């Protein structure tokens, strides 16, 4: 990691802000506290599984989570200090998945349409369906969930990601096993699964037919999505190269169903026939066609959490660094706001899980030293970074603190 004095000086203010942040008590409360304060168990964001969060155009925070086979949505008008009564999305209970790599996703369009996707498990044989619901009355009620995979097969459709472009194209991507089933039926080998996607151009009223992005993806890692121009997106996922190497691929998708040729975004040489359950994070850099990526690998070339900036034009990564090589460290999340790049991840020191943050002011060419934001010695979810026009926020669920939503930037 390179650090010049000027960079360090520029971080001085940021450090002060961080110290202030650390000295502010965490307002969130654990599920245990919430339940103890009520006569009966309560539906609360502090008790929900695998929450995800987004800001709407008016600066309201929306959080989706899973509790007892239902997806819920709750809203906050004070950036997470307090939350409104959660609204149930699916009236009929379903086995909605909620873990680090599989969580309900939520986006809110500028017109106020609230849209959600999640994966519902349909058996213990890795089968599932990609589900979608939306609210057109400002989150007061939700439409009956629909299944978005259009093959009608009882097979794997899981690990969904949802993304809305500036131009209003809603992308839904996921890991799909329809091609694997068809290939195995012919007694041929099919390493891994496939990546599929669809797009809605009318805020989730309808979706185009499912389109395949790639054969032979890894089966169990979340897909990262970032904008590419106004209409397109770039996606980053763990792909199987040469039948046994599980590194990352990047491709550009269009709302017409056109898929660019995939590029190998990371060369870690991770030879493994196993499930890492460890997907990447990606945000678009200010320079068009460039992407900040952070990922995990235990490859021969790179082991641990890494960062690099990928240039689609040059077709190669730049400024690759090892962020944290400690076993147990993982699940990075990136955000870019006002020229500052934020990278948060979970460390592990043998006794507790520190949430680590580092920042870059020069597009990932140099980084601040890692700072510990919070630490817990109980169970916790992956940390997520949420961006608004105002700044960057940490969204994190842990048993000890419940759901924490806190600003990291101070501008």
């Amino acid at each position, binding site marked *: 990691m390179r650090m010049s004095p000027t960079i360090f000086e520029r971080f001085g203010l940021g450090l002060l802000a961080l110290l202030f942040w650390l000295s502010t008590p965490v307002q969130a409360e654990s599920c245990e506290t919430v339940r103890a304060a009520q006569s009966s168990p309560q539906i609360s964001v502090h008790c929900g599984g695998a929450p995800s969060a987004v800001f709407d155009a008016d600066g309201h925070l929306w959080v989706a989570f899973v509790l007892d086979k239902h997806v819920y949505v709750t809203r906050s008008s004070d950036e997470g200090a307090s939350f409104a009564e959660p609204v149930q999305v699916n009236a009929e209970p379903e086995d909605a998945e909620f873990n680090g790599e599989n969580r309900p996703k939520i986006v809110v369009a500028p017109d106020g349409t609230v849209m959600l996707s999640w994966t519902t498990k349909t058996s*213990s044989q*890795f089968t599932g369906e990609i589900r979608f619901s939306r609210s057109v009355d400002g989150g007061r009620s939700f439409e009956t969930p629909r299944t978005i995979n259009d093959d009608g097969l009882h097979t794997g459709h899981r690990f969904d990601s949802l993304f809305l472009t500036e131009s209003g194209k809603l992308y839904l991507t996921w890991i799909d096993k329809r091609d694997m089933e068809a290939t195995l039926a012919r007694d041929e080998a099919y390493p891994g699964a496939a990546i599929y996607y669809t797009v809605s151009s009318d805020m989730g009223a309808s979706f185009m037919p499912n389109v395949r992005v790639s054969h032979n993806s890894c*089966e*169990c890692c979340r897909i990262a999505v970032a904008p590419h121009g106004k209409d397109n997106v770039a996606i980053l996922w763990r792909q199987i190269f040469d039948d046994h190497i599980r590194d990352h691929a990047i491709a550009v998708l269009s709302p017409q169903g056109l898929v660019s040729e995939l590029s190998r975004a990371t060369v870690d040489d991770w*030879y*493994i*026939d*196993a*499930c*890492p*359950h*460890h997907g990447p994070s990606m945000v678009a850099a200010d320079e068009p066609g460039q992407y900040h990526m952070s990922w*995990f690998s*235990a490859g021969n070339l790179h*082991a641990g959490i890494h960062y690099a900036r990928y240039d689609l034009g040059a077709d190669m990564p730049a400024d690759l660094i090892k962020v944290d090589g400690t*076993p*147990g460290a*993982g699940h990075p999340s990136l955000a870019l706001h006002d020229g500052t790049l934020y990278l948060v991840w*979970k460390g*592990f020191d*043998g*006794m507790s*899980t520190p949430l680590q943050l580092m920042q870059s002011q020069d597009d990932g060419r140099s980084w601040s030293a890692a700072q510990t934001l919070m630490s817990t*010695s*109980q*169970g916790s979810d992956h940390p997520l970074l949420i961006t608004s026009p105002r700044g960057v926020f940490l969204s994190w669920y842990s*048993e000890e603190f419940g759901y924490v939503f806190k600003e990291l930037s101070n501008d």
Partner: protein
Amino acid sequence: MIDAALPRLVLGAVLSLVAVQGVHADNIQDFGPQTFAQIKSQHAGKPFIVSLWSVDCAPCRVELDMLGKLKQADADFPLVVISSDSIDKREEAVDILQGYGLDGVPTWMFADTFVERLRFSIDPQWYGELPRSYFFAPDHSMKAHSGILTADKLAEFFPY
């Protein structure tokens, strides 16, 4: 007298066994922060194999299939099977283990939500990828393997 008392004693023993195990009539045990040290001391001076899996891991099923056949051929094979799923998923795990003939042997499931600490208690160098297996020699020197364990690899790593 003795004849009459015996069925009652047997019934009493069965009832207390049920009480100890709660409502779960399976062979799955809680895996906590101290469990791995206990497993090692139970195998003091003896070689054994550890196989880590989860219900959500497709490649793990290939390995469980191989291990199930091995266990059926040799009931004394020193195999320790641990699922990194929460023990809340025990019914799903039992269903899967049944399919490989492994429901009759004691196995463990993570019984603490602080999974990072449980993983660390098994092996500080493990990143959490599955399947993962360990080969302990009689002196408990250890080799680790990530990815599907094949019969060939097992023979190579575990010549006991």
